[in-house]
């Protein structure tokens, strides 16, 4: 079955969705990603959806689930590169992806993850 590759870069996991997402592939990604967070101890997940031409309620829910599960596993998630047509459609559909942090591109997404992580470390007083 089709699987979406998950790359590790330091404390972060990177996912680029390049295929048309069937429900099953989306669910497999959810499982694979949470498992990888556990095994790698990753603190951040960046999901690039710039190639995704459609986000419907199922895919939207999967993205929100991933962010929620990652948070419980002590990792932040940022979704980057959403196409404008997809964003317009999502809002009209009624999905606002509450709780999911988004960024315009991978650069800004990485900036967010690094800043969130630094703030967290600082907030815990480990570096402060």
């Amino acid at each position: 079955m089709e699987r979406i590759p998950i790359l590790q870069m330091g404390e972060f996991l990177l996912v680029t969705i390049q295929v048309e997402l069937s429900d099953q592939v989306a669910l497999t990604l959810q499982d694979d990603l949470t498992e990888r967070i556990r095994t790698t101890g990753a603190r951040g997940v960046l999901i690039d959806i710039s190639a995704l031409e459609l986000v419907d309620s199922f895919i939207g829910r999967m993205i929100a689930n991933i962010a929620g599960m990652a948070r419980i596993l002590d990792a932040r998630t940022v979704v980057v590169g959403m196409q404008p047509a997809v964003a317009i459609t999502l809002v009209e559909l009624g999905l606002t992806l509450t709780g999911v942090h988004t960024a315009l591109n991978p650069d800004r997404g990485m900036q967010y993850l690094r800043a969130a992580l630094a703030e967290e470390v600082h907030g815990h007083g480990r570096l402060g």
Partner: protein
Amino acid sequence: MDASDSRTVKLTTEQDVVSARQAVRQLCQELGFSLVEQTKTVTAASELARNTVTHGGGGEMRLQVVRNGTRRGVRLTFEDRGPGMPDIEKAMSDGWSSGDGLGMGLSGARRLVNEFEIESQPGEGTRVSIARWK
């Protein structure tokens, strides 16, 4: 409208939902829909096709090119012989869900298109017809 303008996609498995999306996108592109119009139509189709597969126990989607004067559009009809919906109004409201969705499927799909009709008989099945004009 002549018969050559109509075709059907069977909706039995979850993979068929992907095929349905691709067929709708192709038709929208042929009609010269803008990217936003395409995306809205394909997203509505995705919601309804998934409903047909998961709640309707499978069925089919019919694609038609429709004309109104010089305007052209697509009409998509989703039909199943599943359990039907006892309360359409409730099913159409935001946040209502019979399954594991977000409850945005039907109500959301309606917002993405220009025309939306639904007929459902408990025990007989459900038919949803949508149209989007260019």
